[in-house]
């Protein structure tokens, strides 16, 4: 017990004194996860809106598949992206395996089902009359889509935050695609895993506290948005 208390005190000290390693790992984690969520939003929200607004054969099957992939194990995505990015893979020529860019791509794939699925669910709540009204007032297809998304902006922001939370807290993709290289691809989750195995509990705890605090902030923001 004493070891835990002492570790916790040292952890807080590392945070308060802005230990360069702790700050570096945190900043890298935030950068990679924010980039993956931002890029994913640009693709997934319009894609979700398209799926929701159009009728086509197999739509139900696709939505069921998307829902199933919510709980996609991160190591499975890690393996898939590893195969794609490895030297002999289809995107091997990009040479982004064991780089932050590869991790961003992996996290984008990981959160895509959640982002698309939540977009479809949120837009499904919008009354068809909203679309009709926008159309009758002269909105183009794109303007109708933007208007519809704006009607459920709180739910859309919650989807983005959920995607960010999943990207930030995952280990599989970060470890398998990033390789946990110190100062380059080491992020909060992979650092905690490594430092714990090496017995550096105070650093692990400091990083854990930061991860928990960010998750808490994300959850608070989501609850606030969903309460609107």
């Amino acid at each position, binding site marked *: 017990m004493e070891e835990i208390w002492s570790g916790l005190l040292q952890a807080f000290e590392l945070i308060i004194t802005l230990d360069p390693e702790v700050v570096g790992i945190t900043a890298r984690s935030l950068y990679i996860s924010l980039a993956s969520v931002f890029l994913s939003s640009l693709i997934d929200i319009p894609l979700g809106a398209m799926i929701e607004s159009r009728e086509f054969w197999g739509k139900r099957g696709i939505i069921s598949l998307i829902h199933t992939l919510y709980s996609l194990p991160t190591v499975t995505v890690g393996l898939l992206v590893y195969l794609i990015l490895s030297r002999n893979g289809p995107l091997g020529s990009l040479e982004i395996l064991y780089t932050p860019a590869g991790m961003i791509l992996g996290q984008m794939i990981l959160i895509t089902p959640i982002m698309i699925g939540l977009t479809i669910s949120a837009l499904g709540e919008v009354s068809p009359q909203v679309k009709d009204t926008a159309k*009758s007032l002269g909105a183009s297809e794109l303007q109708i889509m933007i208007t519809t998304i704006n009607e459920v902006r709180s739910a859309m922001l919650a989807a983005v935050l959920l995607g960010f939370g999943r990207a930030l807290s995952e280990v599989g993709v970060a470890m398998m695609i990033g390789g946990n290289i110190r100062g380059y691809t080491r992020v909060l989750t992979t650092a905690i895993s490594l430092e714990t195995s090496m017995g550096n509990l105070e650093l692990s705890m400091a990083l854990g506290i930061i991860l928990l605090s960010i998750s808490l902030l994300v959850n608070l923001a989501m609850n606030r948005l969903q309460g609107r």
Partner: protein
Amino acid sequence: MSFLELEALGKAYGGVDVLQGISINLSRGEILGIIGPTGSGKTTLLRLVNLLEAPSSGSIRLDGIALNDLPEKEKLSARRRMAMVFQKPVMFKGSVQENVSYGLKIRGKKDQKIVRSALEAVNLSGYQSRDASSLSGGEIQRVALARALVLQPEILLLDEPTANLDPKSAAAIDSIIQSLAGQSTLVILATHNMLQCKRLASRVAVLMKGRMVAVGEPEEVFDLGQEQLDIAVPW
């Protein structure tokens, strides 16, 4: 060539005809009252004219151009010459100002003055900053009319614009419609209120079970003998 020509227009859902053989030529400045009981196809007809739905048969011509076969981009241009107020209008999230200026904004226009005058016209001066979700039913109906009026549409489609309104709000909307008579706007007003139709319309079309059973000036349609009226307006 008439401004708007509907020729043998029909619409079917799942094999059931809801509109059949609707043909009428309309000019600018006219107020056409479409009268008929619930389910007679009034709303469907307005939706077809507004290009919200495609007809199953027949054609709609605007300035001689058939609209049905146009590519989507040109359909959008045609739709932008019209505005429709639905029977139960919805407000977008945001303020009254944002709602009324919606159509202007998507056309890349910013004209605060026209928004103000449209709100004045519907007796809602000073409502600009009000949250649209806090409006009453009558206020929503009037904001929806203002939202259409700011676009200065060449064709204004009104679906039961005064249904469920208190007499004062209904009178305000009636007087706005009346003020459009003889101007360049073609107004198509769907209603089941015979008095309103008689008061406002320059021509009346009677819809029954998806068919246009009578068309003419209000006096011709409404001043028919009781027996004939029962045939033309049998509800």
